[in-house]
């Protein structure tokens, strides 16, 4: 069957029944939230276990258990590899592996897939693991979810977690987790909060055990069952990427400049504006230009949200935002700011972006800047699959912020080498075009026809090269020619869930012509 944006979705696959995507806000959930089993604790109970193996045994690990991880330690994380190696050495098989995201450091996971320790993956992928899965090396398709969609799936019971393993930069003996201090301080553990609340058992792994009571941040002793102390939970050099510097790449600066003009002329850049941007080159450049416009025009915004960078901290410090709402810190400045500044507030993934709640931050956003690998003529965006059809990237907050913000701006170079951004048909739909308003490249600004109001505003600006998305497509074809289509097998390697739990697209295995 085809979903509402015309993607072919099987009604059933490997016994799973799929609900096709029917529009960003069409699906109305019924029923109640999932409830994890009750627990009991008595005076004098101890939580600190001798080692990870004891904690895993105490948590009742067995073949087929589902185990979740979070990615705030980013490319410096030791915990995923440490835990999976331990699980492998215990002879456990067929784990359902539920990370919030993976990085290059987690390449080792491939071995655990090969040996059958990991049987299913539900969550994000990245480069090497994505490549391995794309080659058809996992029996079951990977479920990809946005940050908000993952929180929703856990709260609704679509995804149940047997054991959540939380890397804790600091933890008191009773299980209060702090992430603003400690040798591996990394900013708020926004993505791990929902896991801690809904998992059957929760293990905190820390390299900085402190006496009870510590001042609670996002994760409470109320949910922590076991504590394990290790030498190091991560390599600080990889946890944070130093300072996220604004690019000197003139092409991305050009995109950023146009994007800042789009924001300036959108009518949204007024007092109390709220804003989110990623850490990509063009997005950061745009934020830098927006900062200068706000300073010049003396605009005071309301909040900046999402992954917080030093640039947003700088904007806060200059009085351009009143609050920073942070689900994950991207650099050292953000980590320090979360520690020192009461207006720098940690939020959970569910508070950030879960659509099936009484409210999430993305719904309060005026403007978000997002990247893209491909955009089609209906403004559908692909961030998951690469030019060769391989499933190499996660969704992040892409679907969530696009759906929530008043204006969603995609910023991306019009070509990566000879690969065009704007295509007739994206390889995979991550984010539906109905939630995307403007596309900004170094050569043009295209407005979704749904947003005639924005088009009228931008047309009046001499400094914006307004074009239709079809014109951008034509320009691209003139330069690089029409690409030959990718051919696929019937096998599905990935399922792209929309944030509401419906299926927006599936990723099929590419036919390998070399074979």
């Amino acid at each position, binding site marked *: 069957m085809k979903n509402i944006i015309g993607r072919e979705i099987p009604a059933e696959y490997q016994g799973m029944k799929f609900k096709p995507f029917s529009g960003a806000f069409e699906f109305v959930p019924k029923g109640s939230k999932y409830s994890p089993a009750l627990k009991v604790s008595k005076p004098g109970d101890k939580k600190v276990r001798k080692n990870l193996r004891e904690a895993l045994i105490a948590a009742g690990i067995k073949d087929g258990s589902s185990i979740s991880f979070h990615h705030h330690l980013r490319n410096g994380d030791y915990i995923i590899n440490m835990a999976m190696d331990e699980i492998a050495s215990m002879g456990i098989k067929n784990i359902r592996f539920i990370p919030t995201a993976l990085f290059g450091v987690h390449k080792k996971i491939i071995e655990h897939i090969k040996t059958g320790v990991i049987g299913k993956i539900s969550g994000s992928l990245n480069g090497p693991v994505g490549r391995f899965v794309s080659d058809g090396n996992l029996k079951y398709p990977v479920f990809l979810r946005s940050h908000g969609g993952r929180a929703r799936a856990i709260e609704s019971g679509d995804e149940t977690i047997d054991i959540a393993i939380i890397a804790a930069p600091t933890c008191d003996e009773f299980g209060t987790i702090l992430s603003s201090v400690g040798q591996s301080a990394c900013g708020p553990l926004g993505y791990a909060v929902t896991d801690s609340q809904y998992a059957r058992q929760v293990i905190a792994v820390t390299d900085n055990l402190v006496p009870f009571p510590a001042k609670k941040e996002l994760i409470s002793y109320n949910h922590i069952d076991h504590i394990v102390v290790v030498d190091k939970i991560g390599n600080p050099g990889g946890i944070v990427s130093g300072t996220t510097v604004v690019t000197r790449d003139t092409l991305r600066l*050009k995109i950023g400049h146009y994007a800042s003009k789009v924001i300036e002329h959108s009518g949204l850049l007024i007092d109390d504006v709220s804003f989110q941007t990623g850490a990509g080159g063009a997005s950061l450049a745009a934020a830098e230009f927006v900062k200068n416009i706000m300073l010049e025009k003396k605009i005071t915004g309301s909040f900046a949200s999402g992954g917080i960078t030093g640039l947003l901290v700088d904007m806060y410090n200059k009085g351009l935002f009143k609050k920073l709402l942070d689900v994950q810190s991207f650099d050292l400045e953000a980590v320090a700011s979360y520690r020192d500044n009461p207006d720098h507030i940690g939020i959970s993934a569910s508070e950030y972006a879960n659509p099936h709640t009484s409210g999430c931050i993305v719904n309060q956003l005026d403007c978000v800047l997002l990247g893209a690998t491909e955009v089609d003529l209906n403004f559908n965006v692909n961030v998951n699959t690469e030019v060769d059809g391989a499933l190499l990237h996660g969704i992040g907050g892409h679907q969530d912020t696009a759906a929530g913000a008043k204006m969603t701006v995609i910023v991306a170079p019009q070509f990566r080498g000879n690969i065009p951004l704007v295509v007739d048909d994206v390889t995979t739909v991550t984010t539906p075009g109905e939630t995307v308003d403007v596309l900004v490249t170094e050569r043009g600004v295209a407005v979704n026809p749904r947003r005639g109001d924005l088009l009228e505003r931008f047309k009046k600006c001499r400094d914006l090269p307004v074009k239709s998305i079809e014109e951008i497509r034509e320009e691209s074809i003139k330069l690089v020619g029409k690409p030959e289509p990718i051919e696929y097998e019937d096998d599905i390697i990935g399922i792209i869930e929309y944030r509401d739990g419906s299926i927006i697209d599936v990723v099929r295995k590419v036919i390998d012509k070399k074979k």
Partner: protein
Amino acid sequence: MMNNIRRSLLYVPGNQPAIINSAGIYGADVIVFDLEDSISIDEKDSARSLVKNAIINRNNLYKSNVELMVRVNHLSTPFGAEDLEEIISVSPDSIRIPKVESAEELIKVHEIIGKLEKKFQIKTRITTVAIIETLLGLHNIEEIVKKGLDRLTGLTLGAEDFTRDLGTERSIGGEELLFAREKLVFIAKLYNIDAIDTVFSNVFDLDALKTETQFIKKLGFTGKSAIHPSQVSEINSVFTPTAAEIENSVEILQAAAEAKEKGLGVIARHGRMIDLPVIKKSERIVNMARKLGYFEEEE
């Protein structure tokens, strides 16, 4: 069609595809593909071929109103003649000729261009810009321009080589270049061709670039070369008339036209007499504004 405005002239190394691909997005009036100083001797042939193919492909790579200029190697090098042969064959808009020191030298290049235009049946007339980068070149500048007017549309200063020849160094204030700049502007204006200033080499100091550009505009220069894309918009902003200037110029020309219609000898506006140089300046501003598309909506 090219619009003949030369506020900013962006140098692009001729052997770097990534830079050539995106050279058109920064708003430079002229893209100057370089085959000379930025290309090592081993890669002269590949740069020539790359630039040639980029020019063939210009309709896909660049907007139609961008002027494509090529800085070739000097005829005295083993590369100069082949540069001209290959590049003229694909009809660039203009050639930037390095180290012109005498009228004879320029005439020789013009003759070669003329022959190649015939050989390759080039429909448009390829123009030239002469780089003055030695004391001798500056000494002979008027003769060079006078004899080269059949193709020569601009003069530019090569400051690095010139200061070396002068036995001095470039400074931030640029006092050492003052005489050369003034002389070059004077001759260019006298013969009604473009006066294009030398590059500003500190690509990270955009404020100093702006100060220098404002200064050379005051001297009479009509444009400036850029060595980095980020310099283009700064240069353009200095040389682009403001909305108020455009409006004022339009009114002056209207007053002049009305006076002419009424047969009045004296043109007055707001109680002040407008003389011929003011009218000429207004014409220049309105002309540039038109070429930059300021009046598109009304037309």
